[in-house]
């Protein structure tokens, strides 16, 4: 029987939901980007025109010379953030953000990776773990023991044209942060061949020794992820009073059980959209019209008031407590059942 309002677990659930979401993203095959990288570097493209004509009654054909162009390599890269804002608790360690690095050029490239967690415009600086950059080797979308660390100069990822790789930034969260504070961490991927102003040429450094030319992205790309402090403590205390049919307190068939549950936010912050849910225990029957919130009766039917008996599944008492803060004080939910 669940007797805790889901205000607290709503936060944790959000964490779980986000992790699942991230896993779903990471679990997808690392598919080519929506944009095609273009004709492969080194490709030779020929063009020959043919003229057919009649001369003196004879049908003749004449080809032109063949002109050729060689496709150079264009260097382009894109970094895409995959994680929605990650809820964290101050003091958490090894919290990860997921990014996808995609080679949007037309030749294969090595990419240098870098992390920057000192970003202007947020409330706190996440603290990069050591090491802080990992490949999502196990495709979980999260930082796990199976993920391989990136070491600059040792294992730069090699991406073919259109190929992607998933990268994790791992940070620790400082302590003593208020609820709602955000901290940003940034991943930058830079082509090892070079970066700079579009059009800048690196002679013979493309695939097959053609020239490599910086494309519109400048040969580097940045993605910024965000952590958000979501640490709301809620205390829940449940008690029961038994009244048997004989004026006593024995839990026998026919006895009325009166449950009282007190819900109180005991930390800074807001438990948003708190919902208290409690399934009716087996071997008991709900007492009609017995739900109270802070001594005010709530109808059993689903209507405009804050609660009902939800019979869509296992019969459960549902009371919506709204956005609770410490200032709201103790919320008391009461309902009754009889022992079958």
């Amino acid at each position: 029987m669940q007797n805790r309002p889901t205000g607290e677990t709503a936060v944790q659930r959000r964490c779980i939901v986000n992790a699942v979401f991230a896993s779903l993203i990471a679990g997808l095959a690392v598919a080519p980007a929506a944009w095609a990288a273009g004709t492969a570097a080194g490709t030779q493209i020929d063009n020959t025109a043919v003229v057919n004509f009649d001369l003196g009654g004879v049908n003749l054909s004449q080809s032109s010379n063949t002109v050729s162009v060689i496709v150079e390599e264009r260097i382009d890269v894109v970094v895409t953030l995959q994680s929605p804002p990650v809820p964290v608790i101050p003091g958490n360690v090894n919290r990860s953000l997921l990014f996808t690095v995609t080679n949007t050029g037309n030749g294969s490239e090595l990419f240098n990776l870098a992390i920057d967690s000192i970003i202007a415009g947020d409330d706190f600086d996440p603290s990069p773990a050591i090491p802080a950059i990992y490949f999502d080797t196990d495709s979980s979308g999260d930082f796990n023991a199976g993920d391989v660390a990136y070491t600059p100069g040792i294992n730069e990822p090699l991406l073919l044209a259109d190929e992607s790789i998933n990268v994790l930034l791992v940070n620790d969260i400082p302590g003593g942060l208020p609820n709602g504070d955000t901290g940003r961490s940034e991943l930058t991927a830079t082509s090892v061949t070079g970066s700079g102003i579009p059009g800048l040429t690196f002679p013979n450094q493309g695939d097959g020794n053609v020239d490599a030319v910086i494309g519109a992205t400048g040969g580097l790309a940045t993605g910024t992820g965000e952590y958000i402090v979501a640490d709301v403590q809620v205390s829940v205390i449940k008690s029961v009073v038994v009244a048997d049919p004989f004026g006593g307190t024995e839990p026998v068939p026919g006895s009325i059980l009166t449950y009282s549950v007190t819900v109180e936010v005991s930390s800074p912050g807001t438990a948003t959209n708190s919902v208290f849910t409690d399934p009716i225990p087996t071997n008991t029957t709900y007492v009609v019209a017995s739900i109270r919130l802070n001594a005010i009766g709530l109808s059993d039917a689903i209507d405009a008031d804050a609660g009902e008996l939800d019979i869509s599944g296992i019969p459960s008492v549902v009371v919506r407590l709204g956005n609770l803060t410490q200032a709201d004080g103790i919320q008391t939910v009461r309902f009754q059942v009889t022992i079958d």
Partner: protein
Amino acid sequence: MKILLNAVIVIAVTLGAFASSAQEQGHLNVKTVVSMEEVTIDDNGDRHTQLVDATTVVPGDEVVYTVTFSNVSDVPAENVVITNPLAAEMTYVVGSAFGPGSDIVFSVDGGKSFAAPEKLFVTKSGIEHPASADDYTHIRWVMNNEIVAGAQGMAQFRARLK
């Protein structure tokens, strides 16, 4: 007798010249050039656009193919048709085909048939669609008039590298 022999020899040489012209330029010289547009700004701030030879390209670049043909024989060339196959990596730039005194048609079936753009259709997954520039396999210029001896003509189009 001597004169007759000379005449025969002259004719034989001329016929030989006809036969070899199919392999080497002799009656119609045809030349293709591939260029890119280069924009320069002069000291007055005026923009000048010229075509310069293209040798290297990157995906997204637009190139200009120009075919010039000149009749270096001494008789008119009739029913002159210029056909240019499109490389698979190149996409024709719609509206860019240009050739004075010609009708311009396109093929979507590898050069078997040619028609104006609005008459071209392709079938994909069993459904017929109007053809787009991506579907073109060849461009053809059909000259309306003969090219007299000593005269020239030209055909030009642009394509974008995929």
